[in-house]
């Protein structure tokens, strides 16, 4: 296992690796904005969770949040950074945060860590097989399960990486969730959303199992932005015959959402990657390389 927690320096301050999860307990994760999942409907239904979708739809922020929240709930969580389409805003940039929480990050070692080359580590295939070997419902229904999250690059180009891993997935042993932000170019209406889904599905060679409504306009998001996005994604869900698994929303706005508006749970997100002027500043959970 190539784990950045074990083999790369977890801190650039002292250069010494720290053991996963040694520094922080669950209460510390809560303080940093990642409390245990209170709504069991947010738990994965399968031991492998694939997050794919359009470029910039929020997959990585969602993946990091989901991993930390599951970790806070007591699960063993591993995340594979499968973004091979860009060298920015990837979950590997949160490696210190993930390592401190005891979430195992699988990303290329050495200088390939910083590249956008199509490096697919062989252990990812093994990890998917291993995770999918048990009885899924028993494994994932209760806290304490072993969960594998695959954070995939954007658009069909990013989803292509899944096709090369196709043989490792046990049929019905994974959740393949498409993250959709209807404020993004090309996915603002049903036609665009359908096209995105079809293209990602074709490139991945896997059938999506659900949708995540993650419509936002960064700090300019309001309740109507989230509700409008949910309505559009729900329309796609009806035509595609897929469930809306969850609505994702900034933690600062989540309390203002009327609960009766949704037929699915809401995942409140703490922004991790953010913008360059906020990283490493005061309350930011993240620093740069």
């Amino acid at each position, binding site marked *: 296992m190539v784990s950045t927690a074990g083999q790369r320096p977890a801190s650039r301050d002292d250069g010494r690796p720290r053991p996963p999860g040694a520094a922080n307990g669950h209460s510390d994760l809560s303080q940093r904005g990642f409390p245990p999942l209170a709504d069991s409907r947010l738990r994965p239904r399968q031991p492998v969770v694939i997050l794919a979708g359009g470029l910039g739809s929020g997959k990585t922020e969602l993946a990091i949040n989901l991993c930390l929240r599951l970790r806070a709930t007591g699960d063993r969580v591993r995340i594979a950074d499968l973004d091979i389409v860009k060298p920015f805003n990837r979950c590997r940039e949160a490696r210190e945060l993930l390592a401190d929480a005891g979430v195992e990050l699988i990303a290329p070692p050495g200088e390939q860590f*910083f590249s956008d080359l199509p490096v697919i580590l062989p252990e990812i295939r093994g990890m998917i097989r291993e995770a999918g070997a048990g009885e899924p419902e028993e494994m994932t229904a209760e806290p304490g399960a072993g969960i594998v999250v695959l954070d995939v690059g954007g*658009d069909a180009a990013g989803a292509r990486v899944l096709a090369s891993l196709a043989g490792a997935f046990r049929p019905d042993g994974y959740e393949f969730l498409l993250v959709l932000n209807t404020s993004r170019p090309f996915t603002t209406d049903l036609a665009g959303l359908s096209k995105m889904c079809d293209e990602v599905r074709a490139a991945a060679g896997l059938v999506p199992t659900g949708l995540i409504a993650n419509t936002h306009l960064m700090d300019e998001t309001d309740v109507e932005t989230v509700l409008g996005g949910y309505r559009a994604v729900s329309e796609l869900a009806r035509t595609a015959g897929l469930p809306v698994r969850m609505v994702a929303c900034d933690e600062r706005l989540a309390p203002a959402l009327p609960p009766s508006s949704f037929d699915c749970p809401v995942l409140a997100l703490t922004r991790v990657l953010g913008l360059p002027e906020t990283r*490493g500043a005061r309350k930011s959970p993240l620093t740069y390389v």
Partner: protein
Amino acid sequence: MKGAEAIGEAAIRAGASAYFCYPITPQTEVAEYLAKRMPQVGGVFLQGESEVAVANMLFGAAATGKRVFTSTSSPGFSLMAEAMSYIAGAELPVVFINVMRCGPGLGGVLAAQGDYWQATRNSGHGDYRCPVLAPCSVQEAAELTVQAFDLAEKYRNPVILLADGMIGQMMEPVSLDSLTPGVPSEKPWATTGCRGRDPNIIKSLYLDPHVLEKMNLRLSAKYRRMVDEEVQVELYNQRDRLDLLVVAYGTMARICKTAIDILGEEGLHLALVRPISLFPFPAAAVHAAARHATRVVTVELSQGQMVEDVDLALRELGPSEFFGRSGGVVPTPDEVAGAFRRLAKGACQ
């Protein structure tokens, strides 16, 4: 939108009818966006076989009077430099977008500001200059893209939009309705078919030295006019008495603003001069702000390039201190604040 997407959409709204490109990280999203959008608006999207080919396609297409542009990143920009000189010599309006990555050589794929000299002096050979615009947000990237097309036509000259990998990749809300491109001007010089008129000849070859010098003088007057008319600068947190004046552009300016705010809470007075136009450089604004400051620091994602322009601007007030990170390392606001704190407190003593 991502910065790269906003640049692509702004170019369309500015009336760009052809985009030639060769993919290179970290700006390939511009090409991906335009591969979808250009066909929708009846424009041309063409991936060349290299950046050399792309820049020469621009040379030919610009000669027809159409609004044309490309986007690339540092090593690709170097490959375009020869054609850029020819385009400047032929006085053609072309917009070049350079989303800088770290170097020299292939360097790395992360953000940097090491192409300042290349952009603000001469990318290619010969006696020419180009306006250089540096955005520090996604909205500004869109607005400056539109301006770049207008400036290119106003001066019949290449214009460079100099962004860095962070600006290209960051996502922010954008208001596209606020973009107000100028109306493309009449182009009696364009090669549009010479039926009924004398042929237009577009070239950069002048064998008679006196003729060429005359042209050099005319170009030089054009560049002086840019210096007089095209300076753009943002002043942040200006006061009558400053513990430290900061000069930074692009992504570094965003980080510096946060650092200035952090130190403001500690009672230290810092201000920022952010050049938006790197050529022409806002020398007068830097000098005027520096008169209120005990010390000046230039901050870059390089080991020091713009700092030379700052020193030139400071004249008797200089030289500037310097803080820089490079190689793709982007400092955090806390790290920058730490450097500022040391400089400001040193100045206070």
